[in-house]
């Protein structure tokens, strides 16, 4: 009886939950409404016997039942029953509980349960997919930071002087002899010019050992041998040349000295090779590894051993440069 009165008021006068649309539908905003429409059957306020299915924020689905016996205790209107996770069992539970309720409510509750279960399943599937893909959206940079970085990048580019630096590095590498004694990336004329330039600067002696071709080296060795003989014999025949070769003598000694060094290191290396793994070999290995980074491609493998030694010497120089 009082239901009727309530409904009359709600329908004809005012209901806070009612939402009217232009299409002529009346919706009910009440959270316990089972269908969502504002009807005599669906209104949770105008029916003292009512049932709904809702989810908790965590995702568990509950059946809410309202009975006439508690109509005078509004705070205890809704009886909350947790439904099973199993869909079929949950349906059965609803049937049991709402056995003597109007068919409308039973039907609507089952429909709601179905829909909620479907939604929950879909959400879980999406979450799992997100987790599998492992992609996280990185938030966009704040505009202030973006502008700052843009400006700094511009200035860094100017400070970098890229083309000059690249050119300088390449020429350094050429000068250091990292491209071997017959570099594939350098034309003959330019290479000759480089060698001449280095000789003039006084670094020519060492580089000469490295860079001249095989025939030239033989010639040098022959020359050195001849000169050695000269020195040993002290032939009177070469008196006049002796004065001229005074200057050369220094160079010769340098050559001889470096040759001796190389030979000594060669011998050492051989010894170490014979042994298991000498330290020096590891060092040279390591240095060649660094050398790999720096030299990048000892394509010419002819004088591999000797080059290694000289590589080492070069490396240490450059290392020292870099370290200090």
């Amino acid at each position, binding site marked *: 009886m009082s239901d009727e009165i309530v409904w009359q008021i709600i329908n004809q006068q005012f209901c806070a939950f009612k939402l009217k649309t232009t299409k002529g539908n009346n919706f009910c905003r009440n959270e316990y409404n089972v269908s969502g429409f504002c009807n005599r059957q669906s209104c949770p306020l105008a029916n003292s016997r009512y049932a709904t299915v809702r989810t908790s924020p965590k995702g568990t689905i509950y059946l809410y039942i309202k009975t006439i016996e508690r109509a005078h205790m509004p705070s205890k209107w809704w009886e909350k029953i947790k439904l099973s996770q199993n869909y079929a069992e949950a349906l059965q539970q609803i049937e049991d509980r709402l056995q003597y309720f109007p068919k409308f409510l039973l039907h609507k509750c089952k429909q709601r349960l179905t829909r909620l279960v479907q939604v929950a399943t879909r959400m879980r599937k999406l979450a799992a997919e997100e987790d599998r893909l492992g*992609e996280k959206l990185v938030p966009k940079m704040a505009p202030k930071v973006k502008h700052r*970085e843009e400006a*700094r990048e511009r200035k860094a*580019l100017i400070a970098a002087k890229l083309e000059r*630096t690249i*050119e300088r590095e*390449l020429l350094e590498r050429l*000068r250091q002899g990292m491209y071997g004694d017959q570099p594939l990336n350098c034309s003959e*004329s330019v290479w000759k010019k480089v060698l001449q330039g280095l000789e003039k600067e006084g*670094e020519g002696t060492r580089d000469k050992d490295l860079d001249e071709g095989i025939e030239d080296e033989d010639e040098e060795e022959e020359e050195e041998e001849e000169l050695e003989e000269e020195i040993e014999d002290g032939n009177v025949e070469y008196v006049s040349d002796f004065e001229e070769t005074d200057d050369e003598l220094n160079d010769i000694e340098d050559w001889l000295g470096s040759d001796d060094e190389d030979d000594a290191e060669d011998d050492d290396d051989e010894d170490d090779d014979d042994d298991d793994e000498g330290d020096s070999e590891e060092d040279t290995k390591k240095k060649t590894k660094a050398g790999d980074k720096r030299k990048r491609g000892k394509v010419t493998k002819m004088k591999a051993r000797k080059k290694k030694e000289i590589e080492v010497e070069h490396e240490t120089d450059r290392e020292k440069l870099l370290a200090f």
Partner: protein
Amino acid sequence: MPSGNKGKNRSGGSLSLKTSNKIVRKQLYVKQKKEQGKERHEERHRRRKEEAKDPKLREERLANNQPLTIERKRVWDDVDDDSLGVAVDVAELKRRRLEKEEAEAARLADGVTEEDEEKDDDADSMLDSDEEGDDDDEDAEERIERLRQERAQRKPSIAPSTTSTNLDMTPDSLTRQFPNLFNEEPPVDPKILVTTHLNGTIHKEAEDIAAIFPNSTYIRRSAHAYGHKYSVREIAKFAKNRGYTILMIVGEDLKKPSSLTVIHLNGEDVAPGPSLTYTIRNYLPGKALLGHGNPTNHYPELLLNGFKTPLGILAAKSMHTMFPPRPELSGRQVVTLHNQRDYIFFRRHRYVFREARATEKNVVTAEGKEMEGMQGIRAGLQEIGPRFTLKLRRVDKGIGRAGSEGEDALKWEWKAKMEKVRTRFNL
């Protein structure tokens, strides 16, 4: 108007500002400017004449008036630590440690007693000796500490000149953390797989990026609504099985490449290694460059400049492994990754060593001196292919953020607050 008092009684300011007669003021101002200009001009003229006679004066003047660039003002973290994220010059650190050891050895050789040795050891540990100053042998310790500080403060004389990174300088902690990267002997030929983010549309750019690295393939990411979308971890697993060494993922924003994630897939026994995430800016394809060249498929040379800190060395080593270890010099191509103030500039050039034209000067080393032995030789450069700027943002232990587990899953992350100090850089 600053004050109502115009005219003769105004204090301060030159006559050319004080005069209230506009015409006279104008004339006075012109006169003043002329005089100033004249002073400066005469000064420079005089200096020029003097320096023409004695070039040493010029050198001195230049040496005294070096422009104070940000690189010179660079601020390092003052710790004896070489972990990732500490802005420490690795070369400097090594040198300092060596010198410390030498000092130790020298003192030991001098026959210091064992007690003193222990105290000295404590002093030379990571903690400041100021905190643990013992009363005994204070003089010696103080002296050593002072020396150490002096050495630390002394600017490395060759720092600005050596742009090229020496990868031999890797600190031990780094080799321990990333053994797969740093202990590769012999160096492996890389095999790179390039792909995009899901729903990526920058296929052309990604192909270009793939073409930068020899021995690389680009594969599209499936984004069909009903097709299985492979996650990065799955792709990494497949790539590893097929022998790829590096997986690269190009991210996009508004149809432009905006990020690059490099994931090192290691050999069979080792778990996938560090993944470094960069952001790409100012991407320009080859076509957009004026006078660009076309790349060949020779292995390029690699130039890694300016990586100083442990993090920088990690990035440099990572990029080093992306390219084949033995370049084909006959191709005359060079790839440059130049780090300047944390921005890594990527460039690709074709070069040729040629004789200098009449109008060209000789090449100058970073210190300002002419390069010896290279008079009249220059390297001509022609840029090829894409150019962009990278900035390192993250270093993860495993495959990206999701594929890394453990406490140190995130090795390093860029945070905006790192940029507060203008002179502190991470790489």
